[in-house]
């Protein structure tokens, strides 16, 4: 089932009477049957968007459609959605079984069928042995799976998850995110989840939506958004280690950073640009011919990769006016701290932006 949001806006009034546009005239279409990650820093409006879809928050402007039905004015209980809260919100006084069957009881589903469906859901999330336990007897990951089962048992049109992995420890996070992907594949249900962890979103989503300050920055397949960021924010938000950003200029068909030629370009001369180069975008120039050379400060080798940490002094001079950037190269090069290294840049790993962050084409 497709979710379509048109001109969706949600305004909160802060304590000092200022209007905060948590969601700002957002147009977004979530395709049927896909796992979509809503990604962005804290306060970007992703959770608010999720709650607007759910109906727990009412929009100030705009409409929401589930396939052809407009649900903008419908209360949450009528929208046919399943929601997994960040803290799971499992009813503490009910057992796992009672938690899962609760929605079916409210929908007046016949007892035998309800019992059957509850068991099926418990099996789907792998908790059929725990049906008579109380939530407080379960681990965080198990509680979350109960929450997922409860959300899915009523066969909703869409499944919404609010930061599903934030409350789990690192090991459990990896395990559980694969579970979410598997469950979504098995049920084929349109799923939207909210996260601030870009690695999480990139790893399991069919498509990601990057948001900032209530506005959608970019939407697309994770690898596409990574390879072709449409603005500086998206380029910086995705990628670990973060993309390196330099101040530079274009002169005579070349990109310059600190008077070093970086790469050829067809763009016109521009005096101030931001040059974004992915850490993996540097090639070591063994011939030492290229203009781009740096003093290597620190070298970290972890098995296959070597990370070079290079300091670059700023305009003002002085000890503290430094930015450091990271380069990832093959360990085979055996570079050491203090070496001077020459680089060439992989053309698909460099992105040029105007000072305001927009992409230069």
């Amino acid at each position, binding site marked *: 089932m497709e979710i379509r949001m048109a001109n969706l806006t949600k305004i909160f009034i802060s304590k000092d009477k200022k209007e905060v546009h948590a969601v700002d005239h957002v147009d977004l279409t979530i395709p049927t049957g896909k796992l979509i990650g809503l990604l962005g820093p804290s306060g970007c409006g992703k959770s608010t968007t999720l709650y607007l879809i759910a109906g727990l928050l009412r929009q100030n402007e705009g409409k929401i459609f589930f396939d052809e039905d407009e649900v903008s004015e419908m209360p*949450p*209980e009528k929208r046919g*959605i399943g929601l997994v809260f960040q803290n799971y919100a499992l*009813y503490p006084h009910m057992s796992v079984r009672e938690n899962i069957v609760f929605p079916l009881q*409210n929908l007046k589903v016949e007892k035998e069928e309800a019992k059957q469906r509850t068991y099926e859901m418990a099996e789907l999330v792998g908790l059929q042995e725990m049906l008579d336990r109380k939530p407080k007897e379960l681990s965080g990951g198990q509680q979350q799976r109960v929450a997922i089962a409860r959300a899915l048992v009523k066969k909703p049109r869409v499944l919404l998850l609010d930061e599903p992995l934030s409350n789990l420890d690192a090991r459990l996070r990896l395990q559980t995110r694969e579970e979410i992907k598997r469950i979504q594949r098995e049920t084929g249900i349109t799923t939207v989840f909210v996260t601030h962890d870009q690695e999480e979103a990139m790893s399991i989503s069919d498509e990601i939506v990057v948001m900032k300050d209530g506005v959608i920055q970019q939407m697309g397949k994770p690898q596409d958004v990574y390879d072709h960021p449409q603005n500086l924010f998206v380029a910086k938000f995705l990628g670990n280690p973060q993309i390196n950003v330099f101040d530079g200029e274009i002169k005579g068909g070349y990109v310059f950073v600190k008077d070093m030629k970086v790469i050829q370009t067809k763009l016109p001369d521009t005096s101030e640009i931001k040059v974004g180069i992915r850490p993996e975008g540097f090639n070591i120039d063994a011939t030492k011919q290229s203009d781009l050379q740096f003093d290597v400060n620190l070298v970290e080798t972890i098995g296959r990769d070597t990370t070079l940490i290079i300091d670059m002094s700023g305009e003002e001079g002085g000890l503290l006016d430094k930015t450091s950037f990271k380069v990832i190269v093959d360990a085979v090069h055996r570079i050491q701290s203090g070496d001077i290294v020459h680089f060439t840049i992989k053309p698909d790993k460099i992105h040029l932006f105007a000072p305001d962050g927009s992409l230069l084409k």
Partner: protein
Amino acid sequence: MLILMAVFTFYPLINAFMISFYKDYMPLIGTRAAGLTLHNYVVIFNNQLFWKSVLNTFVLAFVSVPVSIIISLFISVSLKAIPKLKGFFQTVFFLPYVTNAIAVGMTFAVLFNKDYGLINACLNLFGITSIDWIGGTASWWAQMGALLTFTIWSSLAFKILVFTSGLENIDKQYYDAARIDSASKWTIFKRITVPLLSPLILYISITSLIGALKAYNSVIGLFGERLGGQPYSMITIVAFVYKYRADFAFMGFYSYAAAASIILFIITLIFSVLQTVVSRKRVHY
């Protein structure tokens, strides 16, 4: 703290227990007199007025407590739905708690007056003839009705306060989750709110019952020293104890009072324990 409890709680309790067994005890003179006896209890159990007081007390306690809990629960939940007026109503509902029971009782006495009381005036509007609630010809039912109304009304305040604060402590997310789970308002109340409030409800029902079994001020307030439309018709156990305590000019009466008060203590203890046992299965922590 322990010393205070020892002086004001344990000592009187043990003392009363012992006094209830004394024979021919004259407190002013202080003689242990003729020794220990169970006769005091026998006298009490044979006393018609005692059993009348037990009946009155039980009816009063076991009707007013559940009814006032239910009403105060509904009021607390309703108050949550009108956040803007909540503060105002909370103040209004709390006023009975800070007023004097006797003063309130006297006001209720006016309300329930046969000839010029407001209650009868309202009944007349519906074509019902005036009932004598608290006067000389009042039936036991009418008197109990008036007493129950007064008792329930004045006990709502504290309960509303406790339940309102208890409701605040229920995480809003449970309600959001229940809405998404298509629960109706009644289902939410029955299966989410009440179970999550159950520790508080248990606390209130035990303390309220204990308080209700000790009813005395309310009877004096509504009926005056006569303790009823007809003398002593609304006597409660505590009132009974006071009557015999006051008559200590007569030998041994003090011990009767002590005996009756020990009986009340045991009744209260039994019901408190009973409630705790029954609640194990139904109270969710």
